[in-house]
């Protein structure tokens, strides 16, 4: 198994990753974690212990809404959907993250 990084390593990135993975459409909790893991080629692993509290924090902030539905394999699951506020937040956080990363790269390259 390759070494995995916890998204909390950089504060705030967990929210960013969740928001981004919901951009394509509603997903349930397990699918969100799996999507992040798959897309990052298993480099990022979202722990269940941080996933659900984070989802709830985002519900409170009205970035997401949750609905019960059935999954592709016919299991009852709670699906999370991005709200317009959530989409806006994603844009803000993504821009902020880009800025941060390029700043860090700048330092790594030039300093």
């Amino acid at each position, binding site marked *: 198994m390759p070494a995995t990084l916890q998204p909390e390593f950089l504060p705030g990135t967990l929210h960013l990753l969740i928001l981004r993975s919901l951009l394509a459409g509603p997903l*349930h*909790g*397990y*699918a969100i974690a799996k999507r992040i893991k798959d897309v990052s080629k298993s480099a990022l692993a979202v*722990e*269940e*212990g941080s996933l*659900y*509290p984070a*989802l*709830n*924090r985002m*519900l*409170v*902030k*009205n970035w997401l809404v949750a609905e*019960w539905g059935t*999954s592709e*394999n016919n*299991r*009852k*699951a*709670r699906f999370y959907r991005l709200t317009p*506020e959530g989409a806006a937040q994603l844009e803000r956080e993504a821009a902020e993250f880009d800025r941060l990363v390029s700043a860090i790269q700048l330092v790594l390259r030039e300093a």
Partner: protein
Amino acid sequence: MSLLAELRSKLAHLLKRSSFDDSLDQEIRSHIEFRTDELVAGGMGRLEAARVARREFGSTTRIAEESREAWRWNWMEDLGRDLSYATRALSRDRRFAFTAIISFALGIGVNTTIFSLASSFLLSEPSVANPGEVVHVQLGGRGQMAMQEFRFLQDSRVFTSLVGFDENGEVNWRSGDSTRRLFAVRVTDNFFADMRVPIGTGRPIQKGERNVVVVSDRFWRNQLSTGPMGQAIVLDGASYSVVGVLPPNHRTLIGLGFAPELYIPVSSDSARVSLYGRMPSGVKASQMAQRLVPVCAQLDRVFPHPDAKYAQMIKVDPVAGVERFLSKRSMLLFIQFFALLMIVVGLLLAIACTNVASLLLARAAARTRELGVRVSLGATRGRLIRQLLAESLLLSLAGAAAGLAINMMATHALNGLLLPMPVPIRLALQPDWRLLAYAIAIAIASAVMAGLLPALTSTRRTNASLKQEEHQVGGSARMRKGLVTAQVAVSVIVLVTAALFVKNLMSSTAMNPGFDLQRTTWAHMRLVPDRYPTAQQTFATVDRVLERVRALPGVEAAAYTNVVPLNDSSNNTGPITSDARKEPVVLRVQTFLISEDFFKTMGIALLAGRDFTENDRRGGAETAIINQALAKAMYGAAPAVGRTLRFGDSSPLLVVGVVADSKYVTLGEEEVAAIYEPQLDQHGNRANLSFLVRASASPSALTQTLNHELLALEPTSAVEIKPMNQALGFALLPSRAGAGLLGVIGVLGLSLAAIGLFGVLSYSVSRRAREIGLRMALGASPKSILRLVLGEGATIIGAGLAVGMIASLFVTRPLAMFLVAGLNPFDPLTYMIVALVMIIVGCFASIKPAIRALRSDPAVALRLE
């Protein structure tokens, strides 16, 4: 915006919290199942897969707990922590906390007391079930209806229920050797059942009952010494059995604190009653008036009245709530008076808040270091402001608690007062949820008013470097001075208002009522109506009383009157015609029915013509005496004596005399028209007789004799004797109440401002101790030091006075309507007195700090360096 959204989702969450827990559990379960499915697809056995998935997931409780955490009300927990920190901080500084709490307590105590008064008068509801459905019904402009008319309306079933209520029912109560007049309400026998009036002890009056009585709690305790139910009392010569006692907080349908001692059934079919109806639920008063039209038209056919039609003037007024006041114009004055009081006590609270604010500023200056340390440990400014506000909130809540204690004491004292009114009026102020809600609301508002500014300034300072603290203190001192200046200004407004009311009281007391107060005595005698069925019998007694009293030694003159000026009144507004002019005059005229010698007894000058004689009272020619104001209105400068005048269609009266104007209803009135007619048998029978007696010397010696003589003539009557100079309480009540309330408030405001000024000056002297010491060491004279300190006080007082005076000019403008005629709200003398008082108080507040400055030892001061 996002905060609001957060609040909304948290609130929504509160409503479905239990379903949230379920769905969280289920979500965790389905997560584990997904993982199991995946593992099974990867080739693992199902049981094994489920075990692995569960292990991977970790502690479900911890995750559930952390998810729940997101929904919690963090600020509430923060507030709790802030409050407990504030408690510790304040308990270290007890003297400061005590002073601040006292300031808040005075402000909030006075505020809530006025609130209790206002809400009791304006918002209290009568003690009946669903008071919102009950209305007062007046038909054909008449307040009261005959019993047969009442029954007709009752049978019409327009109302769910209709009751008759006669608030003017008086009875003579015989207890031992003495007879006392009591105020009773006579009610129809369905009153208690249909209005569902709560009873404290015993039972209500029931259908068909006659000689039973329900007594007030006060009467039961004080007069019957909580005797047993069923005991007999003698009222108007008949025996009544006490069947029930009202609860102490009983309020009548009339409201306004009217507190009769008894409820008794309407005694006979000849009685007249006011109508109170319960409307079917959902019906409005205006709709009710519409429904009454056909019924009243029928009523007019069955009981035709010569002068008025019931169907023409139908008034349906709610008895509860604010509508009651909007329906009667005279009630608006109450609202205005309470609004004025609320503004004044609001200003007082503002003074108290400024006091606390300047205390907080001083404290913040001393805590710069502590706040600085907290900032460097990572506290944000918002966190510190919240922390400081929590402290002022704690102070204001403690102040509100103490203020409510003041409220309890004040309302208890007010409840004990029997107001000098012709009918018993008792305040029944009681703490209720409204009072509590109001107290909490103003406590929070005061916390913000007093705490926000100091919190903002003192945290701004900590952002700067800690080392600069010495320089930064100057800004806070300036702000404190500004606050005290504002305080002085507000006190000036409160004081001017109070002074105007005190002046109003003085000028109304000094106002000449136009009749003699010093040597006149008023003897009131109530006859038992059953014993005097006819007017002839009643007035035969009047003659006997006059004859007997006039023969007493020490009596100069005695007279009968139906109306005692400034205590009760009777008037007639009508077109008055005269033989001297063609067009009628429409004028409101005070009317009196009197005996001969009335003017001699009252000391009212006869300007022209003659007084009535006994012959006028026997009903010879129809005569009248008019006052100067009426003579002027009717005849101008021409002589009035010998002319005739008539009200509407009534028979003409021959004017035989003109008397000087006097005061009839209020002391403030000017040139009110009045007409006096001799009391004749035809004017109808009455139970209440008023005799006026003029003593040749002091009237106090006559009191006993008169009481004795009148009782000897009619032992079943109730006799009350009081000197006229004590009988003006009613007329003076508005001025006295205003002056009393506002005087107390003014003194409180002044003392709060004095405390504030003293605090600022002492603080300023202690802060400048080094500077003063240095100046003295360099040879400054004590005089110049004194000038330094007093100058500071003088600047504050001067600026505060200037601002306050100008503001007062605007604030006191609406006062004029509460003041007697001729008293100017811009009265320069009042303003001068207030300025003088403020300056004197300022001097006193400056003395101690000034002396301390003079005594400061240059050596000690320099060593502080």
